[in-house]
């Protein structure tokens, strides 16, 4: 995008002031290079979101933003139900509660290297990944309801997880207000055999080394030590979430029309929060959040099982589990007044700053861990929420590197086999059911995650704590 189109108010802030049908400004946090690299559609989508009823503050955009569906990916928008505010299925996305969890192993790189190859093969065998893979768990109707209501707590009750994980999962592992009865039979059918599966696309399980500590005192609190090893999982609510997203997107076109909302783009389909459709979507979406939390807990359990085999004395401790595709009811201070808002984060990570009451006691002094996935080659970052982020973007930060090129372009440019070999030569072992999938996810197809997290830090959204480099990657 052309930076000249924006009102550049400080180093990292690019504003589009309110004009025409916009009910609020649009605000992008990024450096100039990132702005230049963003698709024109980010501008269009960010300003379109600002036209929705009941929007509070601004339509915010994170530094890793790219062209999404209605909302830009990397979009944050909060709505007030008492001001005619809306909930949008597109503002949450198809992969409801897609997110990241990181587990500490206490092992060092030296411990992993001798078994690295067997470890990658075992993880690949143990964790179903990609289309056509089947989980070991099949849910009947009763168990499906229990899972949708219970989330990670349900998984732990069935023996697929550890009780001590719960305080380290958003919402303590169970999203309240879930209404399994609002989840369609088709959505449930799509999920019957998918618990404990990774999915595909940009989803992965990685074994990573702590490559660099950037904030030592916070890293100490997080338990991150130089050259120690962590396990990171990126996935979501699988077929169930996709189906709920699909169905409500279609339904909300009608609901918006009924409510007299003019949609600048059909993908922005939405319903007033205080409407029957809005409430039904929220109940179903929260059930999908539980599905995602349960799914990551189960995959974490599988990873623990594999590590137990190689390192019998090791226990994997959950650092944190956080989603980046959600709509959450949160209290935020706006113009000095605390308001209860429905905060949409589409490809944006919640990033509560130090002192936030929802954070578990051991983390409260330093802020919430913000887990950022990069690409297979460039690595990932762990950030911590900042107090300033509340006023900047309702306590939100970036969620990943963001793609620099489309899947088609990556496919034309890279060979999956060669990407895999090149990474292996650099000590990164990748396994996937599809070499084409590896080509589409080639490290060069992503933006520089370092630039994205630096921009997040300089914008006051979240501060960098540690950089991780991959050792093992299981791709769906």
């Amino acid at each position, binding site marked *: 995008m052309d930076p000249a189109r924006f009102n550049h108010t400080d180093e990292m802030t690019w504003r589009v002031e309110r004009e025409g049908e916009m009910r609020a400004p649009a605000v992008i946090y990024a450096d100039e290079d990132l702005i230049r690299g963003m698709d024109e559609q980010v501008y269009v989508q960010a300003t379109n979101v600002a036209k929705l009823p009941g929007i509070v503050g601004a339509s915010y955009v994170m530094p890793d933003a790219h062209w999404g569906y209605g909302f830009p990916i990397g979009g944050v928008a909060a709505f007030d139900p008492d001001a005619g505010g809306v909930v949008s299925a597109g503002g949450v996305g*198809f992969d409801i509660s897609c997110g990241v969890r990181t587990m500490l192993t206490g092992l060092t790189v030296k411990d992993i290297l001798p078994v690295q190859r067997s470890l990658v093969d075992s993880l690949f065998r143990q964790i179903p990944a990609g289309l056509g893979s089947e989980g070991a768990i099949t849910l009947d109707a009763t168990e499906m309801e229990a899972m949708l209501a219970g989330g990670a707590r349900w998984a732990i009750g069935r023996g697929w997880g550890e009780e001590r994980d719960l305080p380290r999962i958003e919402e303590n592992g169970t999203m309240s207000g879930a209404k399994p009865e609002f989840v369609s039979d088709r959505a449930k059918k799509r999920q019957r055999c998918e618990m404990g599966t990774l999915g595909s696309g940009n989803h992965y399980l990685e074994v990573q080394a702590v490559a660099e500590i950037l904030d030592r005192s916070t890293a100490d609190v997080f338990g991150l030590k130089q050259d120690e090893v962590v396990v990171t999982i990126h996935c979501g609510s699988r077929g169930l979430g996709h189906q709920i997203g699909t169905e409500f997107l279609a339904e909300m076109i009608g609901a918006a029309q009924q409510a007299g909302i003019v949609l600048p783009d059909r993908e922005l389909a939405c319903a007033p929060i205080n409407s029957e459709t809005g409430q039904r979507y929220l109940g179903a979406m929260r059930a999908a959040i539980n599905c995602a939390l349960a799914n990551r807990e189960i995959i974490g359990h599988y990873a623990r099982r594999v590590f137990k085999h190689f390192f019998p004395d090791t226990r994997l401790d959950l650092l944190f589990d956080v989603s980046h595709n959600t709509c959450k009811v949160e209290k935020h201070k706006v113009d000095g007044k605390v308001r209860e808002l429905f905060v949409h984060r589409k490809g944006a990570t919640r990033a509560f700053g130090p002192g936030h009451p929802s954070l578990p006691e051991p983390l409260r002094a330093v802020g919430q861990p913000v887990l950022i996935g990069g690409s297979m080659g460039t690595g990932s970052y762990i950030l911590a929420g900042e107090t300033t982020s509340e006023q900047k973007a309702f306590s939100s930060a970036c969620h990943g590197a963001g793609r620099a090129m489309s899947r088609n372009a990556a496919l034309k440019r890279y060979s999956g086999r060669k990407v895999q070999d090149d990474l292996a030569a650099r000590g990164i072992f990748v396994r996937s059911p599809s070499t084409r999938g590896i080509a589409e996810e080639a490290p060069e197809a992503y933006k520089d995650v370092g630039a994205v997290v630096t921009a997040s830090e300089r914008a006051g959204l979240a501060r960098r704590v540690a950089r991780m480099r991959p050792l093992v990657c299981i791709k769906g």
Partner: protein
Amino acid sequence: MNGAWEHFPHDADVGVRGFGATAAEAFEQAAFALTAVVTDSPVKPAVAVEVSCDAADIELLLVEWLNAIIFEMATRTMLFGRFEVQLEGTHVQGRLWGERVDIKRHAPACEPKGATYTALRVAKESDGRWSAGCVIDV
């Protein structure tokens, strides 16, 4: 008729577009493009599955049609390699032929999550051909 489809780029995902002498044919070709998002390998038309869908207009109908295929792919763990569409107004009666996913042979690259309204267009183009396409979230 073979090969009358294309993929077009989207930042994070992939667009599918089918072409044909009729809208129904363009719908069928868009379905081929959807399968090609997942695999480059041939898919045997071993089993037939019936689907039907309705929508408020023909563009929304394309999204419903592709979502119906995605649903059958996901719940039957199948891929489809032959399609037949009967289009009446805004109703599709469709038949899909395919086989169970063979991970070795099909090496599925990614799993479609849903068809979207992004870059959604179904229209008779100036050359007289119909086109039908949208972005698929993968």
